[in-house]
């Protein structure tokens, strides 16, 4: 224990345990893979349903995985209120990004060479922006790296003339593999043992 007891730090540390298991990465990565696949199969609009399916999956899987390993915490009403606002903002941004990406790519009639060159990279860049916002708002640094990777993939893919579905698939592979690595490390670090039983 340090010389000072940082109360905010204690609360932040408790909050960070929510994201330690890497499940949010795996779920996001799988979501990207699904969206990329849907896009490649010319069913880009289908991609919109995956976030709606995957969020409850994450919530349930996280509870089952983390409760026996790192325990259960109930946050104070102030934190819960902040979280609800964050979720609302993120959901709105997610829907807007997705709608914009799909609309621009599917229905847009891009004019001008520069615009035509940029458009295919937009879905990955917009999802990268979403990942960056999640990372910044929830304090998950890994998501800032994913955001940068998505923007780079979008830019490179657009430059090379690769279709957007493949950008999303590439990003999905990176996020899923990274999430699995975090998850495996978490499972090793926190085996299921009941400290209460040893009490």
């Amino acid at each position, binding site marked *: *224990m340090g010389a000072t007891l940082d109360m905010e730090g204690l609360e932040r540390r408790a909050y960070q345990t929510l994201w330690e298991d890497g499940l949010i990465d795996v779920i996001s990565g799988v979501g990207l893979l699904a969206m990329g696949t849907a896009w490649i199969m010319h069913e880009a609009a289908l991609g919109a349903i995956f976030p709606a399916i995957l969020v409850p999956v994450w919530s349930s899987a996280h509870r089952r995985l983390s409760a026996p390993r790192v325990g259960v*915490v*109930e946050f104070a*009403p102030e934190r819960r209120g902040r979280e609800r606002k964050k979720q609302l903002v993120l959901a709105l941004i997610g829907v807007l990004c997705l709608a914009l990406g799909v609309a621009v790519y599917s229905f847009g009639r891009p004019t001008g060479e520069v615009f035509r060159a940029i458009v295919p990279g937009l879905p990955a860049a917009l999802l990268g922006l979403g990942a960056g916002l999640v990372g910044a708002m929830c304090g998950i640094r890994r998501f800032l790296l994913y955001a940068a990777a998505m923007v780079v993939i979008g830019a490179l893919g657009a430059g090379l003339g690769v279709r957007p579905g493949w950008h999303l698939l590439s990003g999905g592979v990176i996020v899923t593999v990274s999430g699995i690595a975090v998850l495996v490390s978490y499972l090793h670090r926190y085996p299921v043992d009941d*400290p209460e039983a040893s*009490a």
Partner: protein
Amino acid sequence: MTPMAKRLSSLDRLIHEPARLLIVASLYVVDGADFVFLSRQTNLTGGNLSSHLNKLEEAGYVDVEKSFVGKRPQTMLRLTRKGRAALRAYRRSMTEVLESLSA
């Protein structure tokens, strides 16, 4: 008794113990946490944590609620109003002691 000795003797010795201070502070910043979570957060072993929690519960600082989630037993721990007030009072007293030391 000097003012300094008075301040020091007014410190809540139950909370002054480092492990218990960490337990109380960890519970202060949340609504509640279970035994496993608190054990991970404080790095205390089950036996150690249990013994400190018994003392805090006896003093009325911590509320202990035992239940089952499926087949798994769960012990939820919450700081009581008395416990929250005790930590605030301890922080005030400790700040005064440290300020008088640096003066």
